[in-house]
């Protein structure tokens, strides 16, 4: 078995039994990155030197008998996480040379357990996008078909797992940014309940929707990563102080007797036939495993995308006001203060970011605030209530992650609205603040991965991980590996 093909659990076993050192594992990953990065473009920054130093330190810890599940495991994280002393760009030219003086809590938690950082992953600029095409550092290609997008905005995080450039990665999900790329790249991705993982040190896109989560090869790794990053953080006022369960401990409990809801609004005409087929097969698999299906309704689903784009753009327009060229980031040569602001921001931000800042500024501006922003927050309440009602009858819900498999590079680049609509199945979960898992559930006729979404109740991560694990044990989808083809 190739070292770079190993899961966290496999690698941990090898490290613990001293069949392998972390330096060897890290070197293997760095070699793999070097080999496939020209085709994929998952990374913005590779931190080879720091990775090897961290691996040596991990080996010393292991030699001293301290071998935590994550000790010595080579990981990579989205470039949205602040890393002290390591350039953090958020995929934007405006942060081209930003070296943070502090680190994100979620990364600190992994680092403190001995994880090794391979580098910072490519993403849509400021996490705004569904295709990784808006990165200022070049596109990321889907390892299953390099003419296609990997999904976004955590496209680098998904592609790196699928291309076996990192054992596992961290991403962020504001409207589907972990689940959709996980689905398109054939890996496991978890968007936790809002407040479950600290947002401190994570560059904000839409503060009331952003959540940090893992992308992994399989569900067991996902549970492990989730356990590592979850938990209360006094530095994040929206972090929730409830105990973190042992997500790994209940994976084996099966789905017998579980009630799974099928929201009718997610199984509509126009759903890609391959996606439809994969969902039907998944439902059959769960039936065989003893789960029970219930038809449920989330009646306000059709308003979710509009609601999301108003709320997210409004929050983003304010969150991105700090990029003004005064204290950090790009500053344009300018004639006077006002000119410095407008030139720095206009040169530093890409087109999609500008579009969302414009939209958000408009939605908050005098005369439109009630009609747009407040209205969207009210509809958000109705969407939340839909979930509460549906969850009165079921333990979790099963839906597709995306209406189609990965689309082609450039296919939707000129039509922002079409791009936004591709997030229709993931966005409602962020608005409702609850958790959802994306796991491989099949492949299209032309060999593209198709993901299934398991939506849990708030703080119901254990339930969806357990259901995901049962499915994974019963299927082989997650074992398929992308054969990376050279660009022609």
């Amino acid at each position: 078995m190739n070292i770079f093909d190993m899961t966290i659990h496999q690698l941990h076993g090898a490290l613990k039994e001293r069949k392998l050192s972390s330096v060897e594992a890290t070197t293997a990953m760095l070699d793999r990155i070097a080999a496939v990065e020209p085709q994929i473009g998952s990374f913005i920054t590779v931190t080879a030197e720091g990775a090897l130093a961290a691996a040596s330190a991990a080996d010393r810890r292991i030699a001293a008998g301290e071998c935590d599940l994550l000790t010595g495991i080579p990981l990579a994280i989205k470039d949205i996480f602040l890393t002290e002393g390591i350039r953090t760009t958020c995929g934007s030219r405006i942060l081209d040379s930003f070296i943070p003086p502090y680190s994100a809590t979620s990364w600190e938690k992994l680092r403190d357990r001995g994880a090794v950082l391979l580098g910072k992953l490519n993403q849509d600029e400021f996490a705004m996008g569904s295709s990784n095409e808006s990165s200022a550092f070049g596109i990321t290609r889907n390892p299953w078909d390099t003419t296609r997008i990997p999904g976004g905005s955590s496209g680098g995080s998904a592609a790196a797992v699928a291309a076996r450039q990192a054992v596992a990665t961290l991403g962020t999900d504001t409207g589907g940014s972990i689940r959709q790329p996980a689905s398109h790249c054939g890996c496991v991705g978890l968007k936790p309940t809002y407040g479950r993982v600290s947002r401190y040190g994570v560059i904000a896109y839409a503060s009331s929707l952003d959540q940090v989560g893992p992308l992994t090869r399989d569900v067991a790794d996902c549970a492990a990563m989730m356990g590592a990053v979850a938990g209360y953080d006094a530095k994040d006022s929206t972090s929730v102080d409830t105990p973190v369960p042992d997500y790994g401990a209940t994976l084996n409990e099966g789905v017998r007797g579980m009630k799974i809801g099928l929201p009718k609004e997610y199984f509509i005409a126009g759903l890609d036939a391959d996606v439809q087929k994969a969902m039907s097969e998944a439902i059959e698999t769960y039936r065989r495993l003893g789960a029970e299906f219930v038809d449920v309704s989330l009646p306000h689903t059709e308003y979710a995308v509009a609601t999301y784009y108003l709320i997210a753009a409004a929050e983003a327009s304010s969150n991105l006001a700090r990029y003004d060229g005064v204290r950090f980031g790009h500053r344009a040569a300018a004639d006077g203060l006002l000119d410095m602001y407008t030139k720095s921001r206009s040169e530093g931000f890409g087109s999609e970011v500008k579009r969302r800042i414009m939209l958000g500024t408009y939605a908050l501006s005098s005369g439109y605030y009630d009609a747009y922003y407040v209205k969207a927050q009210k509809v958000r309440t109705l969407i939340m209530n839909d979930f509460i009602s549906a969850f009165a009858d079921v333990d979790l819900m099963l839906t597709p992650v995306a209406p189609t498999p990965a689309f082609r590079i450039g296919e939707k680049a000129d039509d922002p609205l079409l791009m936004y609509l591709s997030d229709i199945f993931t966005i409602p979960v962020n608005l409702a603040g609850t958790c959802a898992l994306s796991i491989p559930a099949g492949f299209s006729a032309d060999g593209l991965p198709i993901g299934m979404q398991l939506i849990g109740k708030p703080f119901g991560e254990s339930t969806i991980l357990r259901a995901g694990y049962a499915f994974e044990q019963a299927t082989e989808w997650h074992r398929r590996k992308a054969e990376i083809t050279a660009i022609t």
Partner: protein
Amino acid sequence: MKYQPVIGLEVHVQLLTDTKIFCGCSTTFGAEPNSQTCPVCLGLPGALPVLNKKVVEFAIKAGLATNCSITPRSIFARKNYFYPDLPKGYQISQFEEPICQHGWLDIQLEGEEPKRIGITRIHMEEDAGKLVHGELSGPGDGSGVDLNRACTPLLEVVSEPDLRSSDEAVSYLKQLHQIVTWLGLCDGNMEEGSFRCDANVSVMPVGAEKYGTRAEIKNVNSFKFVKQAIEYEIQRQIDLIEDGGTVVQETRLYDPNSGKTRSMRSKEEAHDYRYFPDPDLVPLVIGPEWVERSRSELPELPEQRQQRFMADLGLPEYDAQVLTASRGVADYFEAGVAAHGNAKAVGNWIMGEITRGLNDNGLGIDACPVTPGQLAELLKLIDKGTISGKIAKTVFDEMWRSGKSPESIVAEQGLVQVSDTGAIEGIIDEIMAANAGQVEEYRGGKEKVFGFFVGQVMKASKGKANPAVVNDLLLNKLRG
């Protein structure tokens, strides 16, 4: 035409917390630029605010002391605008649902009936940083940004437009100042900007119901300037209207050197602050228990204390007012009364010698070198007749200088009052003998000369003769 000014005040009160409102950086004044900063107050990417609980407690106290109701569920909002001293590109403030609402203060101008001034709201917010101009070492003529003050906690106290003159405005402002310093929420230093005032001023014809267009005068940093700025602005608006012009809504800056207000160019651009609830902060829920706990922790307020000094200690209104000018003075006074008992005497000494001493040395009552206990001891020496009131002032000066107890000063310097009639009679006899002419004048009906004899006797006794005894003996002897 006669005009009626209409004035509302917005006061920014900088709170005396140890740390900033949303991060743990120190709020100490005067540190090296940008030395008291962290990712949160620098507005670095990824940083998040966490609310300082003490700011909430201070805000509740300010609200209760100004008769506000405390909002059960209040929220923070972002006020969006770009300025180099505003790191995040927005200020975290409160907009809808401020923490305190619907309060009031009663003011009273001399010779007028008391008047109730409404307080619309009190809200919490973060301060901006500081800009410096022209002090930079490098080439060019840019500005410098110091973010030490950024994120410092402020309360903004907004009055109703109930004030009708500059005197009313100053009276309201002084009372608010007294309350926030009394409660220990603010150091009250107007020069350093700990207590700053913006005034909204408009005029309308007397009898009109609709207010005129208002101008906002920014950052007026003393009571005197508030009065001057408002008076200037009222006259400017009246002159403008009389000349056929119209007042435009704008922000104006008061220049203390010229005594005038001028339009602020930088604020000319129409503002659209795009307030919305800050998603990084959670709602602030203050239940009745919390409000009642805060209420029970409130000290007796100046107004209540003044009434008590009048009712229980029999002080005249003026004295009671002066002795409650600050909580320190009132506490000093009460400690003195507790140690001595005669409120009037203690009060007189505080309003006289102590105030003079403090003013001469630029000290606050907290730094007074004479303790209330020592003052009481001094007064007891007068009561017992050990020293005269006049000598007491000498002793007091020495207490102030050396910090010694009055007894030891009296003993060391031999200042004990002479009440022994024999000794005083001897002096009187000598003086009468030496001034036979004046004795004759007195006996001839010129009673004014009596004062001359008292003076001579006191002089001869080096001030130590008991004045009452001197009086009695002199009268007897002069009458023959």
